[in-house]
C-alpha cells in the first residue's frame, strides 16, 4: 500500500493555500462555541481563585484529581506530534509528510493546554514562579531532587523545543503564502513571519542541517518528557504507582493517545478543506497501524502491572489492582479504560475497519476517552486506597473541575481553529518532497 495520488508543485501550492481563504459561517459558529467553553472555564477558575480550592472535589486523602489527570492526558496527546514530526523524520518515513504539520501544531497546543493544569492545581496560581530556579527570600533554592521540579524542566523544555521546531518547519511555507498573498496586511504579516526567507540554497543548506538536528534533539526529548511525568507517580512509594514499568508504559500510552487525536482531528479537517487527495486514506491507515502497535504496548503494560502485583506478594499492591477493577466508586473508569484501550484498537488490526474512515474515526474517539480514564484510574484509585485503611476515602470532581476540563478541550480546539485559517495546516514544502521529482529525462 502506498500513496495513490501524485501532484505537481503548483497544484499543491494552490490546494493547500486554499485552506487560508476566508472561512464560512460554520467556522465562526465553531469558534464562538469554543470561545464560550473557554469563557466557562475562565469563570470556573475565577470562582476557584475567589473561594479557594474548597470549590473543588479535592479533599484528604485524594489531593490530586482531574487537574493532574488532565495534565497527564494533554502531555500525552502532545507526544504523537513529535513522534510524527521528529522520530518518523529521522527514520525517513514518507507517510508522515502530509500529516506532520497538523500533528506538530497539536503538540504545541496540547503542551500549552497541559501547562495550565499544574498552575491551576497550585491554587495560588499567581505564585507559579516559585517553581522557577531562583533563590527565595530565605536564599533557599528549589529542590532539584523533586520529580515536580523535573517536570517543570521537562515540560517547559518540551514546549519550547516543540514550538521552535514547529516554527522552523513553517518558515518556507509562510514564504509560499507570502508570495501568493494579495491582501497587503496579510502579506506584510507573512513577510515578517517568514523572516526574510528566499528559497535560496544559502538558506536551505543550514535549514536542512538545523531541521535534522532539531529532529534528533526532539527524538530523545519526547521519550524523556512522559518518562518524567510518569516519575511524578513512580518516584513515590504509593501502591499502584511505585513501579519501574511506568516510564515505557506512559510513553507508549502517550503516543497511542496522541496518534488517535491526530486521526480524530485530521479526518474532519481534510474533508472540510477538501484535501482528501493530499492527506489520503493511506496516511490515515498508516497512523492506524501505529495505534495498533502502541495499543499493544499499553495492553502489555496493563497485564504486566497485574502480574507483578500478584507475583511480588506485596498485599498493598495486590489489593490496589483488585480495588481498581472491582471497587464500587471507580471501577467504571477501569472498565471504560479497558474496553476503549485494550479492545477497541484490536478492531484496527482488520483492514476493513481500518480503511473505513468512519469506523476509524469512531475507534480513535474511543481511544481518547479510554486514555483519559486510564489517567483517572491511576491518579484517583491509588490516593483513595493507600496503605492505611483509616485514611481511605473517595473523590468526585466538582462542577468547577468539570468546567475547567471542558474548557481545556475548547482552549485546545480554539488554537487549532485559529491556526488552521492563518497558517498552512498541511506542510506544502514537505508534501512536495514526496512527489515525483520534475525531471527532464522523464518529461521528454
Amino acid at each position, binding site marked *: 500500500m502506498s500513496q495513490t495520488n501524485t501532484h*505537481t*508543485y*503548483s497544484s499543491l*501550492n494552490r490546494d493547500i493555500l486554499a485552506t487560508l481563504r476566508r472561512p464560512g459561517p460554520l467556522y465562526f459558529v465553531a469558534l464562538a462555541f469554543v470561545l464560550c467553553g473557554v469563557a466557562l472555564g475562565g469563570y470556573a477558575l475565577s470562582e476557584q481563585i475567589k473561594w479557594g480550592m474548597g470549590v473543588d472535589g479535592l479533599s484528604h486523602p485524594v489531593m490530586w484529581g482531574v487537574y493532574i489527570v488532565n495534565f497527564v492526558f494533554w502531555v500525552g496527546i502532545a507526544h504523537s506530534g513529535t513522534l510524527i514530526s521528529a522520530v518518523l523524520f529521522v527514520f525517513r518515513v514518507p507517510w508522515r509528510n502530509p500529516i506532520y504539520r497538523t500533528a506538530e501544531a497539536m503538540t504545541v497546543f496540547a503542551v500549552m493546554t497541559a501547562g495550565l493544569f499544574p498552575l491551576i492545581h497550585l491554587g495560588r496560581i499567581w505564585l507559579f514562579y516559585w517553581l522557577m*530556579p531562583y*533563590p527565595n527570600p530565605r*536564599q*533557599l*533554592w528549589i529542590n*532539584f*531532587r523533586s520529580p515536580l*521540579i*523535573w517536570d517543570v*524542566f*521537562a515540560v517547559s*523544555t518540551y514546549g*519550547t*523545543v516543540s514550538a*521552535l*521546531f514547529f516554527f*522552523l518547519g513553517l518558515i*518556507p511555507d509562510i*514564504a*509560499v503564502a*507570502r*508570495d*501568493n498573498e494579495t491582501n497587503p496586511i496579510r502579506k506584510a504579516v507573512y*513577510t*515578517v513571519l517568514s*523572516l*526574510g526567507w*528566499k*528559497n*535560496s*540554497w*544559502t*538558506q*536551505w*543548506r*543550514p*535549514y*536542512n*542541517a*538545523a531541521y535534522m*538536528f*532539531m529532529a534528533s*534533539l*526532539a527524538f*530523545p*526529548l519526547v521519550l*524523556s518528557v512522559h518518562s*518524567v511525568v510518569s516519575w511524578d507517580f513512580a518516584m513515590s512509594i504509593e501502591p499502584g504507582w511505585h513501579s519501574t514499568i511506568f516510564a515505557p508504559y506512559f510513553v507508549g500510552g502517550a503516543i497511542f493517545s496522541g496518534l488517535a487525536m491526530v486521526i480524530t482531528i485530521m479526518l474532519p479537517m481534510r474533508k472540510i478543506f477538501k484535501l482528501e487527495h493530499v492527506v489520503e486514506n493511506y496516511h490515515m491507515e498508516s497512523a492506524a497501524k501505529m495505534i495498533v502497535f502502541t495499543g499493544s504496548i499499553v495492553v502489555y503494560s496493563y497485564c504486566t502491572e497485574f502480574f507483578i502485583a500478584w507475583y511480588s506478594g506485596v498485599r498493598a499492591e495486590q489489593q490496589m489492582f483488585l480495588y481498581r477493577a472491582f471497587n464500587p466508586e471507580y471501577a467504571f473508569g477501569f472498565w471504560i479504560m479497558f474496553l476503549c484501550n485494550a479492545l477497541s484498537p484490536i478492531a484496527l488490526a482488520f483492514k476493513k475497519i481500518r480503511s473505513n474512515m468512519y469506523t476509524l474515526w469512531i475507534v480513535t474517539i474511543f481511544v481518547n476517552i479510554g486514555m483519559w480514564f486510564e489517567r483517572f484510574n491511576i491518579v484517583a484509585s491509588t490516593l483513595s486506597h493507600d496503605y492505611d485503611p483509616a485514611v481511605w476515602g473517595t473523590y468526585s470532581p466538582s462542577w468547577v473541575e468539570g468546567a475547567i476540563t471542558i474548557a481545556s478541550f475548547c482552549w485546545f480546539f480554539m488554537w487549532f481553529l485559529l491556526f488552521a485559517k492563518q497558517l498552512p495546516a498541511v506542510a506544502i*514544502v514537505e508534501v512536495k*518532497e514526496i512527489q515525483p*521529482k*520534475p*525531471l*527532464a*529525462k522523464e*518529461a521528454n
Partner: protein
Amino acid sequence: MAVETGVLSVYSYMDTLNDAIREMNKLGEDYEVYSPVPDHHIEHAMDKGPSSVRWFTLLGTTSGISLGILLTWWVNYNWPIITAGKPYMSIPAFIVIFFELFILLGALFTLVGFGINARLLSFKMPESYDPRFSEDKFGIFVRCPLDRQSSVTETLKKLGAEETRNVG
C-alpha cells in the same frame, strides 16, 4: 550595500538544474541556487560540504549540560540542606536537569546557528528573486560584472536554462 550584478536563469526540471550547477562548479563561477524544495540532490550537486550549524548545536548541547551541572552543584552548596537523606550533589536525581538543559540549549543554539548561516531577518528581497521559486521553478543566479553578462547568459542557455534575465 552595492547592488549585485549577474545573470538569473530559470529551470523547470531538477536534473537540468543539477547538471547546470555542476558545470558552474567546473567553471568556478560564484552563484546562488533557488529551489522550492530542499532536495538533497541539489545539495550534492553544489558540493559545498556540511553546514556549520552543527558547531552551534555542539556548543549549545555542551553549554546546556555544563549549565545543568553548575546550576545543581552551586544551588546545593550555596545553601546546603539535606533533603531525602541524599548527598548535596545527587547526580542520579540531577541527570534529568542535565538532560533537559542539554536539549534546550542545543535546540536554541541550533536555531541561532541556522539564523546566522541563513542570514535571516534581512527582509529586502534580492533582485534575483522570483516568486515562482516558492512554487515550481528552480533558478541559478550567477554573480558576474556587467561586461560578462552576455557570455554567462550564453553558457546558461547552453546548459538548458529556459529563461535568463540580467540583474543589476
